[in-house]
């Protein structure tokens, strides 16, 4: 049992546990912590796989930003936001059915593929700076510069989009009547159950 394989086992367990808690837990906060666990586990694995830069990025971006964002939003909406609505007899069988089928497929697929692998492929000995920031940097700025620039554009668009969507309608001119009822934002065809104040649009002859 070399320290490397021990590291692998620990991080694998960490990842799986995190994943399971994310999927199963009732409260979203605990799910977020599960996700954090998985991310840390993968960061560890990155280290084992000689991808320091990536594990750093993983920690900074994923652990630092994305999970924090999730927790922030959960707190904003209130931890009970996702509670099951009272009596909604939403067809109970659709999601579990889908999940079950997917599980069946996944096991069949991996079993099938696993069985087919006769000879495990070992790792090759990498060059010394494999995975370091210099190597990733040179690769990124030489061969894959265009995707890099496109990613920057993507990020800007995402930021602007997030702000626009997140801010909602407050951006109206000051004399705009303050919207007491959130339903008013929504001008599209309204479901019966949401039809609180919207008069039924007159059917044009």
């Amino acid at each position, binding site marked *: 049992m070399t320290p490397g394989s021990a590291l692998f086992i620990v991080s694998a367990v960490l990842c799986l546990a995190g994943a399971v808690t994310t999927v199963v837990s009732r409260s979203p906060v605990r799910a977020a912590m599960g996700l954090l666990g998985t991310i840390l586990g993968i960061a560890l694995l990155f280290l084992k796989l000689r991808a320091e830069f990536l594990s750093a990025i993983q920690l900074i971006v994923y652990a630092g930003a994305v999970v924090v964002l999730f927790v922030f939003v959960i707190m904003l909406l209130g931890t009970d936001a996702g509670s099951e609505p009272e009596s909604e007899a939403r067809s109970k069988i*659709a*999601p579990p059915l*889908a999940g079950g089928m997917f599980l069946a497929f996944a096991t069949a697929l991996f079993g*099938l593929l696993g*069985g*087919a692998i*006769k000879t495990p492929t070992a790792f090759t000995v990498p060059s010394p700076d494999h995975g370091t920031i210099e190597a990733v940097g040179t690769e990124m700025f030489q061969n894959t510069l265009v995707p890099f620039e496109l990613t920057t554009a993507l990020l800007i668009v995402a930021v602007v989009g997030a702000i626009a969507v997140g801010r909602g309608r407050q951006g109206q001119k000051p004399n705009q009547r303050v919207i007491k009822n959130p339903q008013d934002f929504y001008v599209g065809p309204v479901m019966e159950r949401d039809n609180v104040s919207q008069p039924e649009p007159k059917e044009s002859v």
Partner: protein
Amino acid sequence: MDIFPTNDFTLLAVILSFPLIGAFVNGVFGKRLGKEAVTLMALSAIGVPFLASVATFSKLLDIRAVQHAAGAGSADHVEQGARLYWHAWDWLDLAWTGGETTLSVAFSVDGLSGIMALVVTGVGFLIHVYSTSYMADDPGYHRFFSYLNLFIFSMLVLILGDSLPVLFVGWEGVGLCSYLLIGFWFQDDANAAAGKKAFLVNRIGDFGLLVAMALLLRYTGSLSWEGIEANSGNLPNQILKVWQMPEVLAFSFLPDWLLLNEPTIATLIGLCLFLGCAGKSAQLPLYVWLPDAMAGPTPVSALIHAATMVTAGVYLVCRLSFLFVLSPATMFTIAMTGALTAVFAATIAFVQNDIKKVLAYSTVSQLGYMFLGVGVGAFTAGFFHVLTHAFFKACLFLGAGSVIHTMHSRIHDTDSSQDGRNMGGLRAYMPVTCVTFFVSCLAIAGVFPLSGFFSKDAILIGALTNTVSSSGGVHDAFVWPEWAGSVLFGMGLIGAVMTAFYMARLYIMIFEGDFKGWSIVAGWKEPEGHDHHDDHGDGDEPIDGPAPHESPNAMTAPLLVLAALAAVSGLLSAHDLGTHWLDHWLDPVFANALGNVVTDAEAGSMVPYIASAATFAGLGGAYFVYVMRGGDPARELAEKVPALHELIYDKWRIDELYDELFVATLETLAEVSIFLDKWVVDGIIARASAGVVAGAGSVLRLFQVGRVQAYAAAMVIGSVAFAGFFLLPHARVQLNGDLSNGQYELVASPGLGYQYSWDLDGDGEFAEDDFADKNTANIRLNTGKTVEVGLKVRNAFGLIRTVTIPLTRPDPSADETETAGVQGRATGQLADIEGRQR
């Protein structure tokens, strides 16, 4: 210097253009020009063409005189008659694989149309003069004269046209004008309906003419008179094979001529043309529009429905006489229809009280006589009756018009002002109208010296003696029945008696006895004591409405002229008095028509005396019934058999029959087609397809449940299926090579990272681990041997599928058909073998 050369006779342009200009000016500027200008325009528009027609006629006379002088020597010389042409412009040209002909707007006048032009413009002019005062106080004065001028123009186009299409232009033009004139007082729905009815029935006739023109174009290649005459020679020999009459339907029991199972083209064309003539000249099947046409003003009835338009049919038959005689069947049909119409219309005229209706039915009956005449081949006699009828019938109508005019001033209701029962004793009040009416009555009855006698006798002689023989028509099975002569003559005689009777009745009803018109004025009180009859002059005037008075000169002058013409015109061709001018005049027109007509002269010698006897019998009878017995026998007969009287009074209820038979079927057809259109045609193509699309749409809508996860699940299932297809190996083998030498080649379908191992000798075990990349294998089989070829396929993921392909080589020693069958099945099987899974 001949300013009007024969082949470019521009005088015709003058004759034609004046009425057209008159119609246009009156129609468009009439209201602004005022009554006097309209009258001047209208009269000149007809007067000038009349003078031009007279000039044309004189030129024709000169040419005939020259020909006569030139040919005086030889006895058998037949003058070929004069014909003056005027070619206006090329109208259109028809070309087809069979030939090419140019239809030009060309006019020509010869003996026949010369006389017709004279009649049309002459009588037309008189009627125009008459209507200036008859329609004096009508608001639509200018509109009336515009239509009347347009009518004269169309009539002139009809008779002066040099080809059938130009005649057709005039033909429908007069139909249009009669529609406008009958429906002149359009405020009253009945008049408009009468106009429409006239136009539609005429249109049915025009349908016949159109078909005849089409047939003529196809079988003679031309539509002008000369063209048709030139190559109408072999018409009787051609048969129209549209559909073979199946034997079982051949009604063999019917006489051949009735069945017309082999109609020659000549008969077909003749019958179609006659359908046109029947429509226009109100013969039996299509006469229903003429009595209703009395809804128009009386001068219209006089001009159109007595003198000119209705005779167009007879003119056409005379013009194409050479075509009609080619088919005795057609001639017989014309003669029989004419005779039947004469008798039938006369019966209805017996009981009518409205004097215009009586005259209308008498016109129909007289037209029947004309068609009887031309039907039996006596074309000159028929045309002569057209002439004389134009005069006395116009005079009768105008006389009736002046009577109605005065009655109208007494009571402003059109129906009662035309009802004969309100009249009587007008002889005292309207002497001129009475005399002219009397002369015309005698003329139409056929009293000796007057024109009616001569023209009707000529027809009766013709009916008795003429037979039309089919000159060499191979296929025309019809032979002129020998009983035809006596039957036609008999019907003609009965018609003559009836005509004399009802005309006398009409005269007596209007002019004899005492005036029954006092009481019709509302609020009139019978002046007590004295008898009106004898103190009409000096007694106190009846309380309301002016006493009947003689019509103004503008109305009586034409009456006198027409009455004189009616009396004198008989001399044109009075055989008994030895004058045969009209026959010689028209000989060239009917020259080659009379070839087919056989007349045995001496049988007709007694006819004039029999005819006069018939006439006097009719007149005496009427005098006896209505004057000596004051109309009692008629009333008793009416009470004795009221149903028959009612039936005849309702005009044998023919109109109702047509409504029931034709109009009703058309209406149901229209209803059905509208329903069909809305629900079946539209239903299938538009509504059904829309329904299908909507239905499919609503089915697919069920799948959109709206929840993200449901869609995600569907996506997962889809990807699973997709992945499955790609991951699992497939083994499909294509086998080609030809069966004869047993050399086959098996080709397995390629795939992603596929490797194959074959077991060619069918013993079941495969070369264990040599999964080579080669996917083809060759195998040799000798005859009749079968082998199970095995194949293992391994894909990239190492999954293996085994397939066995049964191969059999047919044994050629089996019989031929079997091999062919097998061959077919084998190659089919060869092409795509889906092996059985082991």
